[in-house]
Every structure is written in C-alpha cells, then in structure tokens.
C-alpha cells in the first residue's frame, strides 16, 4: 500500500475557510426577514409569552431533527440537493429537483422584497423623510386626496413605491425606479455569490453580524422611548387560553419550519462543503437555537417601537379631542390636559351632554392602538417607518433600519442562490472549463429578467401569491419526503452509522425517535391542517383601491380563475417533481433490466464517497 500524497478526500471541491464561516452562513440563511416581521406578530396575536410554549415544542420535535438531517445528509454525501438525492436513490432524485425548483421560485420574489428595502434605504437620505409629508394637491390649498384620507406613510408605500393598481388583473406598466433598484440588488447578489462560497464566505461576516449590532442599537434606543414598556408588557403578557386554539400550534409549527429555511436545498449545499469528519449534530442544535434566540431578541426592539407608536397615536387622539372640546366650550388653553381629560369629559357630559354628543369625539383607547398588529411588509414599510418619523434623528434610524433589513435578506438570499448554484455545478450541464463567474452571472441575469414582472404595478400582489403558494406547501411536502427517504429508503441504520462516523458519537435515542416517527408525523399533520385551512376560505387578497367606499381600508377581492390556476401551478410544480422523477426512473429501469431494487448496492455508504 502506498501512502496517498494528498488527503483521501481531496476532490477539488471548494471548502469553507473555517468552521465559523460555515456556521455563520447557516445562521444567516436561517435568520431572515421573517424573524423580524413575522415572529413578533405571531407572539402578539397568539397570547404573548404563551406562544413560546408551542414554539419551543415545535423547535424540539420538528425544527432541530429536520435541520440535523439536512446538515448530516449534505456533509455525508458532499453533493448539492439534486446530486445528494440521486445518490441516495435515483427514485428519490425528484426530491432534490423539487428543492431546486423551490429555491429558484423563492429567489425570484425574495430579491424583489430586498428591492423595496433598497428603495426605502436610498430615500432615507433626505430631509424631511419623504414618507413623513403628504404632497399637495393642484391648487395647493390642501394635501393630495389619496394621501389625506389614508396616511403619508401609506401613500408613500402604495403610490410612490409600488404605484399599485386596484386589481391584480390590471398589470400596469413597469416602474422604472423599481427596475433600477432591482438591477442593483441582483448586482449585489452577483457580487457576493460570484465564485460560490469563496465570496459568500467573506460577505457573510458582514451580512450575518451587522443585523445583530443594529438590533442592539434599536433595543437600547427603543427602551428609552416613551410607551416602550406598554408595548413590551402587551407583547409578553402570557394568555394561556390561546393555547386551546389549534391554530396557534399550527402557526408555531409552520413558523419554526419556514424560519429555519428547511427543504430549500441550501443547507445541504452549505454542509456539502464541509470536511466529512465534522460534528453536524452540534452544528444543528447551535443553528436552530441561535435562530430562535434571534427571533426573541428581535421582538424586543420591535415591540418597544410599536408601543411607542401606539402611545404617540393615543396622545394625538387625545389632543385632537381636547382641541375640539376647547373650541366648542371656549375654554382657555391648557385648561384640559391629557391627565385630566377623562374627568373634564365626564364633567362636561353631565352638564352639556348634547354638545358633547354633537362633537362626535373619537374614543381614544391605548389598547386599541396596541391591538393594531401587522406583520410582513406592512410592519416594516408602514408601521415602523411611521414610528421612525417620530424619533429624533429619524434619517439615521431609517438608514440603520433598512441596512439591517437588507443584510438579513441578503444572507438568506445567499442560501437560496447556493441551493440553485451547487446542483447546477454538479449536473455537469456546463463543461468544467466554464468559469464559475460566468455561471453565476447567467443565473443572476436570468433571474433579474424574470423578476422584472414583479416591478409591474400589480407586482406586490404577485409577490404575495408566490409567498403564499410557492414558499409554503411545497416545502412541507419536500421535507416529508426527505425524512421518509432517509429513514425508510436509505434505512436509518445505515444513516446512524454514517452519522456516527462523522461525529464520532452514537446517535442517541432522541434523534432515533424524532427521525423515525415524530417528525414525519408532525409534518403530515401540519401539511393536512395547512391545506385544510387554505381550502376553507376562497383565495382572496386585499387590494388598495382609492375609489373604494371603505377607503383607507383595503378591499377584499377574490382571485380571478386564471390567477388561481397559477397559484395551483406554483404549489404543485415542485411537489410533482417527486413522483415524476421516480416514474421516469422506473420506466428507464424496466426498459434496461429486471433489477428494480430501490437503492444502489450495499457497499455504498458515507465513508465510500471519496471520489
């Protein structure tokens, strides 16, 4: 036997510079915009601190096992998603293709959300902030009607940024400012992923750590704002009654699942660049824990700021009422203050009830303002921007906030793009001599061209569709087949041996039980519940229509049939890859030989994949 001149695993595959880069990339991929604008919302509407119970249970029984599975799989087989599943069994190759398709679909619309963040970022350099004032109408006697009836922030978002149409069927034209920002965003993504993990590994140091800095700054600032404590108390007060509602458990399970970015193939791609002897078990627990801690940590400044905003709105409401009362009764200024408002009102109501009734005073209730919960883009672009206007030094806060959102989204984009890029490199559709820069450039260019449809005036409705249908159901299906594939097709005994070889420890009972029974069962239940809930109500959307009688409330509209067909297509396309590829292989195998064994020969195992 001659000693090999290089390590047995030298196969020219790129690798991480150090372990920290790898962990940081996984954390950056998992920690995304949803940690900031979805988790606090769920916490708030599902009974505050009580939501943490189903969340933690879902983390332990669904999140961590699935994460460990994906990381171990990628590390063992050292291939991207398509290659890895093809290696496990050609019949399961469809799972890899499905994740690849989902990664493409999600990259398309996710970068458009970053476009909006970038647009707000470059608009934050003005004084005053453009979303703080309404533009004037033609004869300059008042404000623009649409702006006046809703608010300046709403106007800036729906009119100046999106220029939204009242209906999804009206597409409108391409918005040139959004195209510019979209091109910039894809250029940034190209810059960072130009050579695969060589470049993302360097970029991730900034994009993954910077949000934590900004969150800390916002935390300190948020806690000093008046009304912050009201917001925090409101958020964290546990209301254990909500746990009786199954919707809460479903939301916790789906939140954990989507928050960890499972089933995209990106995690498999990341761990495939690891050396094989790496403790993936510890990595999985670390990444999942950091992700959940970040969600909790982010909800504190978010809710301080929301509490501040609610308090300011409450004070404004009181002040408006005070002015009308003083005007009506000709009382001297400063006779009614916020503190004695209620006593004055009761006094005046007893002496002059008809005058008070004639004033039509709006009832100001702090709870009502705190109850106005928003999630998603509404939280960032409407509610938070409004709160930022009220803070001193608003330009700086706006700039910081939008850079933070941009880095959060960018680090998740890296994972998505890796999930697309790595399998393509391995499929060998391009020759070895084509430089990686060219391939990543082509991917970014094609994605940019397709994503141009999101810059149409109806683009934001389409992004909602992609988010609801392409980025939800297929992931559950793919994850289910992942677990079933590894545990029952590849056989968990072999996988345990592989993991033991990689980590040096035997798989303990927790992993065995969760992988075999609990996680697939949970996934099945979540999938059924999700589908049932979607079926219950007809698919509708909320349209921004200035001509609607209830304006500024949004108008509920139902999707036209052709749009519903596209929704179904988006959800079904990745899922259908799984049976299609299996069928394709079955036919190929039947034609070639009589051997219809599911898995490749016995010798294949983790240690054997040295080539």
């Amino acid at each position: 036997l001659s000693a090999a001149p290089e390590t047995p695993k030298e196969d020219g595959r790129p690798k991480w510079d150090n372990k920290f880069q790898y962990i940081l990339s996984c954390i950056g991929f998992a920690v995304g915009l949803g940690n900031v604008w979805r988790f606090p919302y769920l916490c708030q509407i599902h009974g505050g601190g009580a939501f943490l119970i189903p969340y933690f249970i879902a983390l332990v029984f669904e999140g961590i096992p699935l994460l460990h599975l994906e990381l171990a799989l990628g590390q063992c087989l050292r291939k991207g998603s398509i290659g890895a599943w093809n290696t496990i069994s050609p019949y399961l190759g469809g799972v890899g293709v499905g994740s690849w398709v989902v990664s493409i679909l999600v990259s398309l619309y996710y970068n458009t959300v970053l476009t909006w963040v970038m647009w707000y970022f470059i608009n934050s350099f003005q004084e005053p902030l453009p979303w703080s004032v309404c533009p004037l109408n033609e004869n300059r006697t008042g404000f623009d009607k649409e702006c006046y009836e809703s608010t300046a922030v709403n106007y800036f978002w729906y009119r100046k940024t999106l220029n939204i149409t009242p209906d999804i069927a009206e597409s409108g034209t391409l918005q040139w400012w959004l195209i510019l920002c979209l091109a910039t965003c894809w250029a940034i993504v190209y810059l960072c992923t130009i050579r695969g993990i060589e470049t993302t590994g360097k970029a991730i140091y900034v994009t993954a750590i910077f949000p934590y800095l900004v969150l800390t700054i916002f935390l300190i600032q948020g806690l000093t704002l008046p009304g912050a404590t009201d917001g925090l108390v409101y958020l964290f007060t546990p209301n254990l009654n909500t746990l009786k509602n199954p919707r809460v458990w479903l939301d916790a399970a789906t939140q954990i699942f989507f928050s960890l970015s499972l089933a995209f193939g990106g995690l498999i791609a990341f761990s495939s660049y690891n050396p094989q002897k790496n403790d993936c078990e510890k990595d999985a627990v670390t990444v999942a824990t950091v992700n959940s801690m970040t969600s909790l940590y982010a909800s504190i400044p978010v809710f301080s700021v929301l509490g501040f905003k609610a308090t300011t709105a409450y004070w404004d409401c009181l002040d408006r009422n005070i002015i009308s009362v003083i005007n009506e009764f000709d009382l001297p200024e400063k006779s009614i203050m916020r503190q004695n408002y209620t006593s004055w009102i009761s006094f005046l109501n007893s002496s002059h009830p008809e005058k008070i009734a004639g004033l039509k005073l709006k009832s100001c209730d702090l709870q009502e303002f705190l109850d106005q919960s928003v999630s998603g883009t509404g939280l960032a672009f409407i509610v938070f921007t409004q709160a930022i206007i009220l803070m001193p030094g608003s330009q700086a806060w706006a700039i910081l906030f939008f850079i933070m959102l941009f880095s959060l989204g960018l680090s998740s984009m890296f994972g998505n793009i890796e999930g697309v890029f790595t399998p393509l490199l391995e499929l060998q559709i391009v020759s070895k001599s084509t430089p990686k820069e060219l391939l990543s450039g082509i991917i970014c260019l094609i994605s940019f061209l397709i994503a141009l449809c999101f810059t149409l005036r109806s683009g934001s409705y389409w992004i909602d569709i992609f988010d609801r249908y392409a980025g939800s159901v297929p992931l559950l299906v793919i994850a289910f087949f992942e677990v079933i594939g590894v545990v029952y097709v590849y056989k968990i005994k072999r996988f345990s041996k592989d993991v033991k070889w990689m980590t040096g420890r035997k798989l303990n009972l927790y992993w065995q039980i969760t992988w075999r029974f609990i996680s697939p069962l949970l996934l099945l239940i979540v999938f059924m519940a999700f589908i049932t809930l979607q079926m219950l109500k007809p698919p509708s959307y909320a349209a921004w229509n200035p001509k609607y009688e209830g304006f500024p409330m949004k108008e509920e509209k139902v999707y036209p049939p052709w749009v519903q067909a596209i929704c179904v297509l988006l959800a079904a396309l990745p899922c259908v890859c799984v049976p299609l590829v299996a069928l394709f292989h079955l036919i190929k195998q039947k034609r070639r030989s009589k051997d219809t064994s599911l898995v490749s020969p016995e010798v294949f195992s983790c240690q054997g994949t040295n080539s």
Partner: protein
Amino acid sequence: YAWDANEEYLFKAMVAFAMRRYSSKSTTQISNVLLCNVTDRVSFWFVVTDSSKNVTTVPGSVVEAAIRMNRNRINSAFLLSDKTLQFLKITSTLSPPVEPSTPVWLIVFGVVLCLIVAGIVFLIVSGIQKHKKKNKESTERENLEEKVEVTVTLENGLPCEVLDLKAGHINGVFAADDERFTSL
C-alpha cells in the same frame, strides 16, 4: 404675551391694513373694524364696515380674500403661525416641500451602483488572472507528474478505485482508520 386691549387695537389695525392693500382704497379706518363676542380663549367675531356706504358691512368674501393675501404679515405681527392664529373658513395656502433639482435618491443610487460595479469588475478581472496563472502552472506540472501518477495507484495490477467499488471485504488490520495516515 397676554391678550389685552392693546393687542385688540393691533388686530384692528392689521385688518384695516389688509383691507387697504387689497382694495387699494385708503378709506378703511381702524374704527371700521368691529370685534364682538370676545372670549377668554381669545376667540372673537369681527366685521368690517364701510363708512362710505352708510354703515353696511363689507361682504365676507372680500374680507377673506384680503386676509388671505396678507396672511403672513398678520401672522408675523402677532409672532404666530397659520396653526396658532386660525381664521375659520380661510384655509391657508400651503407651501410645497422643497424639491432639489436632482432627486437625492438618484445621487445615493448612483454612488451605490458605482461601488458595486467596481467590485464586480475587480473580482472578475482577478478571477481571469488567477485562471491564466493556474493554466500556465498546470501545463508545467503535467509534464513532471505524468510518470509518477501511473505507478502510485496500482495494487496487484488493479486500480484502487475499482477495488473500493467491488464487493470485497476491507481488512480491518491494515486499513483500519484514516487516523493511521498523517493528516495534512
């Protein structure tokens, strides 16, 4: 400052001044402006009489137009603003927000885009240079390594990769762990 009879006098004077400027007639006197229903909150009604037409009041629209034209003078006389000195039924003409000639966001956008394009060009160029260097080096090395490669991986006349794939048994004594080999 407190509102007293002197301030009322000033107010009458300002209204008379506004009427004079608007209608270009020098006939309006301070005595033509009458205040009534003065309350503690400092709100009152006022009318402007026309002494040339036998104690009739000037129409409200004329007064409104006159005040609108001279609003800023009246405001500054009292050190107040449109918000703090309110004339019911006279909406103020709002000044548009200041609009710089090039929108600020285009400038910021230009800066960001230039930085990114510079970064991309730098990375592509350095990639091409590395590629060229590697090509040159590998053609030099290939000539040296050709001979060595042929002998290293043969075992009993069979290449090692084939041995791995065949369903043979690995002898634990000889090839137990990778740790026996010094790791690089």
